[in-house]
């Protein structure tokens, strides 16, 4: 009796198991392109960089294993410390500047008013220009004689003679910040705009009836409901700033008195100017660690992944 019952069950089990296996294979197939790309362009390079970072690796000649030597070297490297602190300073200032402008812009272009799509386009336009291209453009704009800013400043009597905006740190740094904000703000604005638009309008209306003013609605509704979007925008902005290179390389070549050497610029110098590829690799791995840590902290601060 039990045999006759058991047989069909077992028979039914097999095709089902096979079907499940098929489905799993299918799933693997779907993610395969992404897995392959990530492996080739991220995992393997990172592993190779880790491998290199344990060596004294000249451009030509035989690499030699030095263990953690490159990592211990960093602690006494004052130029690396300077690059780190400059990058931190730049990241804080740039991020604050970008958000301080992107938020008002997003609020401005959120409402359906006349010509709003034109505004959105204008604010977003610089984003499509590459950072290197933008830097070159601004080098020209900031040129003492043939540029745009210096003659204008002189015309309005702000400066007596034509000022070279990129000659001193105190002028060059703000110029670069303005350029970066001009270049990036449209992107951050669009991200924030999607967050703003995902807030149902009845919520805002309910809050109006509840007597919440403009600022209170922003503080108690908009900001908390945009937490995820804010996290995204913040991480993108911070990551971008920590990895800053083009603008310093192109606009000031490391700046007056080498005061604008960012971490990536320093890594570049170590690797491709001094040809200490091993040390450069170690620095890159440390930078990767810093970025991961920063992102984790930001996600935690904004409590993303908490329930809605």
């Amino acid at each position, binding site marked *: 009796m039990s045999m006759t019952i058991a047989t069909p069950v077992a028979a039914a089990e097999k095709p089902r198991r096979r079907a499940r296996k098929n489905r799993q294979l299918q799933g693997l197939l779907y993610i395969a392109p992404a897995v392959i790309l990530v492996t080739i362009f991220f995992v393997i390079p990172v592993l190779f960089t880790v491998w290199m970072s344990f060596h004294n690796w000249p451009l030509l000649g035989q690499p030699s294993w030095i263990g953690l030597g490159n990592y211990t070297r960093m602690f006494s490297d004052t130029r690396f410390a300077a690059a780190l602190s400059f990058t931190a300073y730049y990241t804080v200032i740039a991020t604050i500047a970008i958000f301080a402008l992107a938020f008002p812009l997003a609020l401005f272009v959120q409402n359906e008013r006349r010509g709003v799509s034109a505004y959105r386009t204008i604010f977003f336009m610089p984003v499509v220009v590459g950072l290197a291209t933008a830097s070159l453009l601004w080098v020209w704009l900031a040129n003492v004689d043939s540029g745009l800013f210096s003659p204008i400043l002189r015309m309005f009597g702000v400066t007596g003679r034509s000022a070279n905006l990129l000659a001193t740190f105190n002028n060059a740094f703000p110029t670069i910040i303005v350029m970066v904000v001009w270049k990036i703000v449209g992107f951050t604005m669009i991200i924030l705009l999607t967050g703003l638009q995902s807030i149902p309008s009845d919520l805002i*209306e*309910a809050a109006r009836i509840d007597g*919440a003013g403009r600022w209170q609605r922003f503080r108690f509704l908009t900001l908390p409901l945009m937490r995820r979007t804010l996290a995204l925008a913040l991480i993108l902005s911070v990551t971008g700033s920590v990895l800053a290179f083009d603008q310093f390389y192109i606009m000031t070549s490391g700046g007056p008195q080498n005061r604008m050497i960012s971490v990536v610029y320093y890594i570049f110098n170590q690797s491709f100017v001094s040809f200490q590829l091993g040390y450069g690799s170690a620095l890159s791995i440390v930078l990767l660690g810093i970025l991961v840590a920063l992102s984790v902290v930001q996600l935690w601060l904004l409590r993303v992944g908490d329930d809605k």
Partner: protein
Amino acid sequence: MTNATGMALRQVRKSYGATNVVHGIDLDVAAGEFVVFVGPSGCGKSTLLRMIAGLEEVTDGEISIGGRDVTDLDPSQRGIAMVFQSYALYPHMSVRDNLGFGLKMANTPKAEIETRVTAAAKILKIEPLLERRPGQLSGGQRQRVAIGRAIVRKPDVFLFDEPLSNLDAELRVSMRIEIARLHKELGNTMIYVTHDQTEAMTLADKIVVLRDGRIEQVGTPREVYEHPDNIFVAGFIGSPKMNFLAGVAANDGFDLAGKTFPLGYSLAEPGTPVTVGIRPEHIEVGPSGAATFSVEVDFSEYLGGTQYLYATLADGQSLVIEHRENTEILGDGSITVSCDPGRIEVFSATGRRMRR
């Protein structure tokens, strides 16, 4: 807890650009009255309610609440509270904070917020839910919280925009009864928008029937049902829909399907075309009433307790009859039906009700 306040609309208009949506509404609402706006989709019910709430600008006209002109006031200063169809609960706040948000914005002392939130939670029986987030509540519970948020503010006027339309049929009935109980307990003025006529009939002290941004009729549920001012109201209120039959005015009555029906008064010049309206539930099977006619039953639907008969008159016009007797009428056959002439409404070619 009675701070009932009346409300008045004077020539209230709304247009979006060149499109006029609401055309000069005049309406008086007495203190403590339960007023229901009904009408087909797109007739401007929500727009009117949102203008009262202050969420939509009034293009022209005046709105006053409790004798105070509020036309240009901020929503929070009008003494109103609104319950939205989508509930519009703040998703990131606990139920407690949702209820207390308005008071917090008004800088109410913490202790008082606590008392009022607890009181409202008690009325709506949502005390065990106070620490939850809206996402962790069922539809019915969310609806209670939304109503609770309105109660906490102690408004003069409650505004509801189709508050029950997202609930299933059973819950709808129980929430409807709940809202009626609430109105009785609080005694506030309430304005309620719906396109469900059962909700309208059961809840309202006064029904306002709207069409295309105009008021078609204002009256108690009984007035609107028994004495509709025009063909639109007659057809909109009542289910199944009133039968409309093409007839001709005659001396002391009308001609319909080759037969003269006496009404005891003259409608118009004999020969004028009229529309005769008879509700399905006012037609009886059998020759008992004064106005008797015979119909051909095409088919019928049995709903338990009632039976709808789909029939045709001698001249081919179709007619629905609601039959509530126990005896089953089998389809396919000629039967005699009758109806009380006092229940018959007659409308002119322009749709206005004639007589009386």
